[in-house]
């Protein structure tokens, strides 16, 4: 018990000292039941949550194993009440089960009558359950399977879902590893997902989540519905699938604003699914169109609220969620877990970087002092205007120039929130601009030109926050963003994290106005990346100037 790599805190966090010789071993031991929360350079923080412990139970681990793992690697005596709490929490799992009854279909069965009574009495289960078959069994409305599981988690009596999956319509899909192969962590991710049934895979930007999706599809070999964020992304998925799997163009359909193709593998956008006309969701039939064997949710952190309810019917099918950043500013991560499934795979960004699969990245915050006139305007502005004023400070243009001057050879993206600012910048830098107004075709053209190196600098709005694949972008300069969104920050960093052919370091700059809300938001935004080990170096804009002059 002395000198272990793990320190168990009374607030249920686990601190893992990364430099300890036993760190890797300990990590493997606690990964099944502890959630990785932060991974900065010296100490990684894990957390024990009821959901995490229940997932461990679902995966076949029991309380003794968890307690043993904690005690084996702990440096100091583990607080006794915590061990008692862990055992009690885990004991709550499995008192209720979802099973397939031969005559009644989906039922909720209990091994502890008192628990069932308590659950039935709760208002939250009203409407989700049907008739009581006997003392220990209750019918469940099949469409409410996911919702019920969510509710039960909230009530503290998670149900073991033994009702199985609908296999779906078989369709041959295989990976075609000709000259390439799945990376070890991608294989691991596919395995973990498959073994768990359904769930979320979290991998850093640029680490190849699409391939993980392809791998899962190959494993499933069934018809697949893929939900993505926008049309460009849909096209990217299609290209990748054609390249890496046995699927041909004809087998993959696109269901978006522009096209409505339903094929064995269909890629749809979240937007089209949530389109309402006269109060009715018009495209819901897509969900019933085929006997889908696998549903893939890309960028699952962006899952819009209506989808939470709507796709509950898909509960009977395997669901895979893919994302790099499962943090939401509205705190609804838990809903993702209970609707899609728990986190099946997670890897610290720095680990993947160390393996060479994503580019090493350096993050820099450049602090700009506002001139007096702007400072006065800021001080007396209305609160809702303050961020816009600060982040659109005129001095930022000059800073962007200076930064680009430091990287004469690199492909760079300049990213921002406010269209006026971006227009100005585009003019200033003499670079093309992509915003929400740019047509899809024009976007594709510009992206292609960027890819080939024809264009060196590109100014983009938040349409380019995710999914677009610009492997050679190695510098990103952010002038403004969606307030304090951590996930946006991480996604933007992700734009430059594809490994470069010459292994060069990627650079991410955030230009921030000092002593304003811009700085406060920046601090919040950077938190996620800092916790992943990407600490920001802070540089004064004046120093940049001096550097260049000198």
């Amino acid at each position, binding site marked *: 018990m002395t000198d272990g790599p793990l*320190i*168990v*805190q*009374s*607030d249920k*966090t686990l*601190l893992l*000292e990364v430099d300890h010789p036993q760190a890797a071993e300990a990590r493997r031991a606690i990964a099944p039941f502890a959630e990785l929360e*932060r991974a*900065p*350079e*010296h*100490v990684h*923080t894990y957390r024990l949550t009821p959901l995490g412990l229940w997932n461990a139970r679902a995966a076949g681990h029991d309380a003794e194993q968890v307690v043993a793992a904690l005690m084996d690697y*702990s*440096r*100091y*005596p583990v*607080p*006794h*009440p915590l061990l008692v709490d862990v055992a009690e929490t885990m004991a709550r799992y499995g008192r209720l089960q979802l099973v397939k009854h031969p005559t009644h279909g989906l039922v909720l069965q209990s091994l502890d009558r008192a628990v069932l009574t308590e659950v039935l009495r709760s208002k939250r289960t009203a409407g989700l359950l049907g008739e009581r078959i006997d003392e220990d069994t209750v019918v469940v409305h099949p469409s409410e399977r996911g919702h019920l599981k969510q509710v039960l988690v909230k009530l503290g009596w998670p149900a073991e879902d033994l009702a199985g999956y609908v296999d779906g319509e078989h369709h041959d899909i295989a990976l075609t590893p000709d000259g390439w192969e799945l990376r070890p962590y991608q294989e691991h991710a596919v395995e973990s997902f498959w073994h768990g049934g359904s769930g979320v895979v979290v991998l850093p930007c640029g680490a190849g989540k699409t391939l993980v999706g392809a791998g899962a599809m190959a494993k499933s070999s069934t018809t697949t519905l893929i939900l993505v964020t926008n049309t460009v992304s849909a096209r990217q998925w299609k290209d990748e699938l054609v390249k890496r799997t046995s699927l041909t163009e004809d087998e993959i359909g696109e269901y978006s604003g522009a096209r409505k193709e339903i094929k064995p593998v269909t890629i749809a956008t979240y937007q089209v699914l949530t389109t309402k006309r006269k109060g009715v969701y018009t495209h819901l039939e897509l969900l019933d169109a085929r006997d889908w064997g696998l549903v893939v949710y890309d960028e699952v952190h962006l899952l819009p609220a209506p989808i939470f309810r709507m796709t509950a019917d898909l509960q009977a099918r395997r669901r895979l969620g893919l994302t790099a950043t499962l943090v939401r500013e509205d705190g609804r991560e838990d809903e993702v877990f209970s609707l899609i499934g728990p986190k099946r795979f997670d890897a610290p960004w720095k680990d993947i970087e160390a393996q060479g699969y994503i580019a090493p990245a350096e993050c820099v915050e450049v602090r700009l002092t506002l001139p007096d006139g702007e400072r006065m305007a800021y001080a007396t502005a209305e609160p809702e205007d303050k961020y816009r004023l600060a982040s659109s400070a005129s001095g930022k243009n000059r800073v962007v120039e200076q930064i680009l001057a430091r990287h004469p050879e690199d492909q760079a993206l300049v990213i921002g929130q406010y269209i006026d600012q971006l227009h100005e910048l585009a003019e200033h830098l003499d670079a093309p601009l992509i915003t929400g107004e740019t047509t899809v075709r024009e976007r594709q053209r510009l992206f292609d030109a960027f890819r080939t190196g024809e264009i060196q600098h590109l100014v983009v709005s938040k349409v380019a926050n995710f999914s677009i694949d610009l492997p050679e972008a190695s510098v990103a300069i952010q002038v403004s963003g969606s307030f304090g969104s951590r996930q946006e920050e991480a996604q933007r960093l992700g734009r430059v994290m594809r490994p470069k052919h010459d292994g060069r370091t990627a650079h991410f700059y955030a230009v921030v106005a000092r*002593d304003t809300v811009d700085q406060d938001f920046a601090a919040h935004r950077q*938190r996620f990346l*800092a*916790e992943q*080990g*990407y*600490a*920001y*170096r*802070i540089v004064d804009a004046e120093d940049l100037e001096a550097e260049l002059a000198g």
Partner: protein
Amino acid sequence: MARPDRSTARRTGAAPVPPSDALSFSEALRGREDAALVALLRARPDLASPSPSTIRSLAARATGRASVDRALAELDTFALQVLEAFAVRGADPHDRAAHVLDVAAVVGGLGPADDVPVDDLTSAASATADRLVLLALVWDAAAPGSPPDLRAAPGVLDSLGPYPAGLLAPEGATAPDDAVLAPLDDAPPGARAILDALTWGPPVGVAPRAESRAVEATRWLVEHGLLERLAGEDAGRVSLPAPVALALRGGLTHRDVRPTPPVPDRTAHAAATVDAEAGRAAEEAVRLVTDLVRLWEQAPPVVLRTGGLGARDLRRLALRLDVDEQAAAQVAELALAAELVADDGEVPASFVPTTLVDAWLADDVADRWADLARAWLASSRTPWVATTRDAAGALRSALDPAHTAGWAARLRRTVLDAAASSPAPLTADDVQDVLAWTTPRAVPPRDAVAGVWRGAELLGVVALGTLGGPGAALLAEADGGSGDGADPVAALDAVLPPEVDDLLLQGDLTGIVPGRPTRDLARLVDDAATVESRGGALTVRFTLESVTRALAAGSAGDADTLLAALARHTRGTVPQPLEYLVRDAARRFGRVRVGAALSYVRVDDPALVASFLADPALRATGLHQLGPTVLAAHVPAAELRAALASSGVSAALEDDEGRTVSTETDRPRTVPPGRRRGRSRYGAPVAPTSVPAERAARAAGLAAARAEAVVGELRSRDALAQADASWRRGDGAVLATPRPDAEAGSGGRRPPRGASQARGTTEPGDLLGLLHDAIAEQSLVSLETVDARGVPVTRTVRPLRLEGGRLRAVDPARDAELTVAVHRIARVVPQAARPPAAPTTRTEDA
């Protein structure tokens, strides 16, 4: 609690309480070894103060209701059961010879005890009986050399309550009389049930009136002597006579004997686990008190008019400490008990840290804990009362000076003793059960026990229901022990994990101390960061606010000092974002400054400022420049104005809003205190109201030396009194010897023989003794009483019986009985013993 009327009827005019009882008891006492008397006085210290003058008065005191009650309150359940057995068996004076009791007989008649083998029970009962004898609650009436005849001391039966062992207070034979049960075979239906209901007590019940079968059964039982009807105020009730009850019980006095305290069915935790938890709790307690002291240093809460802490301040404290209100109240009480905070006595009063705080804060964790724990153990405060509501519904506040009780410290000791001797982990309810067994006649209130237990858990004296290592050392020290086992500081040190001087700083502005920080490191991170997580390690986050706080507090001084301090503790270098943060904070920090001033000078012309600063006549005002046209001074406005005037500068006086104030009349004015700017309200810390008391608890009971002294005096005085009494009785042999000099020890004044010196006494204790003697000898005494109007009346009477604070006596001259309240007896003078023919009746004036 009605006594059966029948026995009173039996008593009138019947034989008086046998003479041998009271006298034999004091003779038996006299016959004890000195060491035994010393032990008795130490165990029942109320008998020693004031010191008894003779053995007889000692005996009288020892059999008095008050003292017996007090002695019984100390007995545990088993001892009471054994004592009841003695009391119940030996009560029949006439049948004395029939039951010579020894321990074996008592034990045999005790009754079954779960899971306790007979041998163990016998030896436990033996040991208990020995103790009861030592306590003079049981005494050996047999002559020396004869087999022991143990019986309960006089007064015990009275004190044991109306139904000792569930039996009707035995007045007659208490031998189980099986013959009595013989007719039961022919009993009508229902008779057995009635008997069963009364068998194990209480032995009195309401006679059935309605149901004919029950009425018939009752009538039959009464006819056959198995039940007795009560009369007078108890009419309508029936009682089960003791011999019948005993027979029904099969001769056993108790149904369920409990030689040991109840032990819960739980497995004990490993000592290492308990110690680890205890250490954790101890650290946490020290931290909470430290936080409280720091909080009240900056913002002392106001003392309520009633003297306690207001509800809103308590809530604020609870929020700040991140505990619930009850725990916050406990922490505040702990600080108060340790005299780290006190009412500063000002008007209005606040709770502020005392002068002890600085030394305490500078100590190590173990020392600080020991101070708190010792203070808690010895404190007479009752913190569990806080946050409850009284009868009127008003909330009782923490730190209320009225919340003390003399028994609080003692209760804490008792609770810890219970924890120490229990083999299984306990909850507060278990402790209550143990205490109910340990002192059944003085069970402490449940909420007090629970409150003490909670306090012990908070401090880490008790962890996981078990007394931890540090707690055991604390208890040992309080018991007067010394050495390693009785050193709470060392014990806690042994249990705390080793200190760590490392700080791991990370790029996300967090820092981690992978263990318990050293004092310096703890201070550093406390000052410069906010704590995020506690436990085996400490995680902190550096923010602009926290770093600024450190710079402002002055402890870090400036950016370089703070960074150097951080670098000292960290492996590697300080991450750039953190370094930048510190420098940024330092840059911002100096920009807004606050200072104190009593008055100011505002001018239009900056040149004037320079001239004022240079003027030697104005130096006394302490003028210093704040801005190009503003100066501040350390003297009040009027004085400054005067100083300027004497320098030839005529200044206008202005108010808060810059309006000129007229000053033609020179009426003195001062700014009301509420508007005074810059005056600090919180002055120097307050000295504690009492010199820190001895923290080690005093040993209970009487010190050995004192008891021995008392016994020594007692023997000598008693010897004189004995000889004196023998002389007075006309003991021939003694007459030959010169009368003992009763005053020899006090200055040599010899009272003349036959002088009208009252031989009697006015001492209440001795008075009872003399009356007991007279009853035993059936002799006369001259009794002086005071009537309702305060007029003294003297009579010569022969005392018959003394009980319940009343004396029944016969006046031979008038052949009338009289009853006198003992407290009205002013003087008792023994007359010669019988025969009354001896012409020795002297009626002396008092």
